[in-house]
């Protein structure tokens, strides 16, 4: 590590410690209303209790992660398949496009109450919300990726005598992979967002449900703690996808 990067890290640590210290000090001297902002020691205590002493947060975290994972997998597999189908049957693409645009324009979170009615308070409704968000993002990335194939590569392949099938597997698909991948990365974030959003509205379990409950009982330490947790989760997911992308797409 260079001295410069060590200095940067030290500066961040100083900033964070000062920020938390000020927050703690302000709330203990009643300069900052604890019922609105919580207080760092309370937040730490909440997380400690939730994950260590009684461990109840693990279950909620598990529900949320499971919902997000299923939404992501189902939504993106469906989206990539439909995207490939569009490419093989362009007429189907043209026919389906207006309906898809309409569906995509709908704010999916607003559909959550409907999904709750259809799929109940269990994991089904949040998966439906998460799926519907992921699907459209990954679908548009797949379509864009396939359209974006370099025409030089196609011309060269056709001049060499490549069949349509060969052009697809050797040129179109590999060149679409990076674009599809950035769609997948966004899709994973949105799967998490959809699931937490649905849980906030109504659910039996999950971090979103816990958040809504804590908010209604004015336990701000818990709300802040969960928000922090969700931010970490989002960060973790992005980091994971970046790692995967780097090892999978070494040629980029």
């Amino acid at each position, binding site marked *: 590590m260079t001295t410069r990067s060590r200095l940067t890290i030290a500066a961040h640590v100083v900033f964070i410690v000062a920020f938390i210290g000020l927050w703690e000090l302000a709330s203990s001297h009643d300069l900052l209303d604890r019922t609105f902002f919580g207080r760092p020691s309370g937040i730490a205590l909440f997380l400690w209790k939730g994950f260590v002493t009684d461990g109840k947060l693990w279950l909620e975290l598990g529900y949320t992660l499971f919902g997000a994972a299923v939404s992501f997998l189902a939504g993106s597999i469906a989206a990539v398949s439909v995207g490939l189908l569009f490419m093989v049957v362009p007429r189907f693409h043209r026919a389906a496009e207006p309906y898809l645009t309409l569906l995509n324009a709908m704010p999916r979170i607003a559909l959550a109450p409907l999904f709750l009615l259809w799929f109940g308070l269990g994991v089904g409704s949040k998966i439906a919300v998460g799926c519907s968000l992921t699907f459209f993002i990954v679908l548009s990335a797949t379509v864009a990726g396939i359209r974006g194939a370099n025409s030089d590569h196609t011309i060269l392949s056709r001049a060499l005598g*490549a069949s349509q099938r*060969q052009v697809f597997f050797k040129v179109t698909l590999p060149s679409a992979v990076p674009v599809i991948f950035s769609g997948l990365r966004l899709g994973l974030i949105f799967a998490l967002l959809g699931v937490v959003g649905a849980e906030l509205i109504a659910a039996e379990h999950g971090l979103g449900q816990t958040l809504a409950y804590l908010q209604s009982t004015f336990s701000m330490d818990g709300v802040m703690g969960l928000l922090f947790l969700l931010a970490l989760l989002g960060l973790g997911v992005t980091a994971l996808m970046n790692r995967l992308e780097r090892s999978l797409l070494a040629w980029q």
Partner: protein
Amino acid sequence: MQNLAVPAVALERDNAPDAHAIELRDLTVRFGTGTGSVLAVDRVSFSLAPGEFVSLVGPSGCGKTTILNLLTGLLTDRPEGDVRVLGKSPSAGNPDIAYMLARDSLLPWRTALGNAVYGMEIRGVPRSKCEEQAMMLLQRVGLGDFADKYPKALSHGMRQRCALARTFALQSPVFLMDEPFGALDAQTKLQLEDVLMDLWSANKRTVVFVTHDLAEAVALSDRVIVMSARPGRIVADVRIELPRPRNVRALQKDTTFHKLYARLWSLLEQGMSSHDH
């Protein structure tokens, strides 16, 4: 020329051992129909003997790429006239032809070796043979140590070397090259021209080489065909009487080379102004 009107002639030619590797007769290409149509190529005729290296020069938009696309069978519009490559009408994927584009068009997700085998792979050459052949060519073009590198890690010149390897790895007797060195700096260009000359002398294919660089055309070719501004017509067909094997860098100081270069320049200028006929 109407194809219908010449069955006897065509038959005769098909039976005779064909002396020409490439033959164009009264080729006319028009893009689009009606008032908006563009006459790109106007009654162009020329032919290449097997193993001949011929450059095609002319102002931008005079139909050079169009002629190559036509020979490759990539042109969808039906042209007038008669075109033969080794006695056959053009068709896409003709294994007799190897095409090299101006941009290297390397597949970025394949290594240099992966790109060098690409042409053979598409043409169904067995994998082990592909790799052996491609590796040999990468060494010939000076990329032996970069076989496992992705194009992003290669310089412009190296990428074009790789494209050369991919093209020469094909066993096609006819090469069509569209400004393959157009995007390179002068130094790298001279280097690659020598690489091309080496590869070509070792295994003489019939080459149609499109370029904007007259010095390049003179240095490499047996003949240089000069075309006029659009609609493209042939202005001159100049034989380059320079001994082979040639060293492109040494030629830069040769007086015959410079004379030919000057002559081509004036022909090209005539072609540019012969717009109104």
